[in-house]
């Protein structure tokens, strides 16, 4: 026991794990957002694995995406990536104490999110027009619709919630209600939504292009 006493005695080097503080040295809100992100990442992973499961089991999986669809999805990817850049600039402005800058960058980020949603909904309507439903489609195995709409629909919901979230943060920042930390935490969420798309785009679109 002597060694234990020595470790807690005066002059001993305090371990980050000795209690009373955050061993991660991050604010609680940030840690909370990280924990949410990990659990949400597991949700999306489950959907992607389920999609892979039905697709591998299928003998007749539809490959419906022709070049215009792939181009559309590529532009959406570029828009989302660029909105991540504006978000990171917003967080930087927040750390520098530039409230006007934060509002401007967040509005640019929200614009990216809205543009992403518009392009995506337009594509959804096109597919519905062609006869794709949750449990049937004109080309092959019926599970395609359920897999596609669930996966991209949940992602689109995240983008939409993100736009509202950033709007609240921008509003609160301009009214001096929110700190740089709140902007940074909202940034974590936004980048996560971008990150998820980095897997949906190749797996759902690129792997289903018509010539593949």
């Amino acid at each position, binding site marked *: 026991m002597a060694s234990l006493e020595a470790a807690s005695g005066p002059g001993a080097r305090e371990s*980050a794990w000795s209690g009373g503080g955050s*061993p*991660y*040295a*991050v604010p609680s809100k940030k*840690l909370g957002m*990280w*924990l949410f992100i*990990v659990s949400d*990442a*597991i949700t999306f*992973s*489950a959907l992607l*694995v389920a999609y*892979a*499961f*039905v697709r*591998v*089991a*299928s*003998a007749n999986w539809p490959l419906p995406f022709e070049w215009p669809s*792939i181009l559309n999805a*590529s532009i959406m*990817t*570029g828009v989302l*990536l*660029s909105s*991540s*850049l504006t*978000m*990171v*600039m917003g967080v*930087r402005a927040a*750390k520098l104490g530039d409230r006007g800058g934060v509002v401007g960058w967040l509005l640019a980020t929200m614009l990216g999110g809205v543009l992403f949603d518009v392009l995506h909904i337009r594509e959804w309507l096109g597919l519905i027009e062609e006869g794709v439903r949750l449990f049937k489609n004109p080309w092959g195995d019926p599970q395609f619709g359920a897999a596609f709409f669930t996966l991209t629909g949940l992602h689109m919901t995240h983008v939409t919630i993100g736009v509202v979230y950033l709007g609240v943060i921008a509003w609160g920042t301009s009214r001096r209600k929110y700190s740089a930390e709140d902007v*940074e935490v909202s*940034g*974590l969420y936004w*980048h*996560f939504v*971008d*990150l998820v798309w*980095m*897997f949906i*785009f*190749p*797996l759902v679109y*690129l*792997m289903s*292009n018509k*010539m*593949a």
Partner: protein
Amino acid sequence: MHESSEHAHLEGTKRLFMFVWGWLLALTLIEVVLAYRQLEIKVMLALLMTLSVIKASLIISYFMHLRYERRSLALTLMPALVFVIAMMFIVFPDSIRLYLMRPK
């Protein structure tokens, strides 16, 4: 602490963010070009997933700042995530069985 001030200087520069953004766009472009090559589906999947994991790492490290947090945060979050995702594939052989046993 010369080193840490240099660190703080580098972690927030616009140039670094633009650089990461440029790489993310370039890797996306490579993915799109790859998708139109005549490759075996397994090879294609492996290539696209490798590129996507690189993109995700760039986003997590620089945009989400995890590289500059204490190492313990990443070590708490990431192995658990990878482990859970790996465990999801435990049912996967059943998918291949369904494919092989499908009515001809």
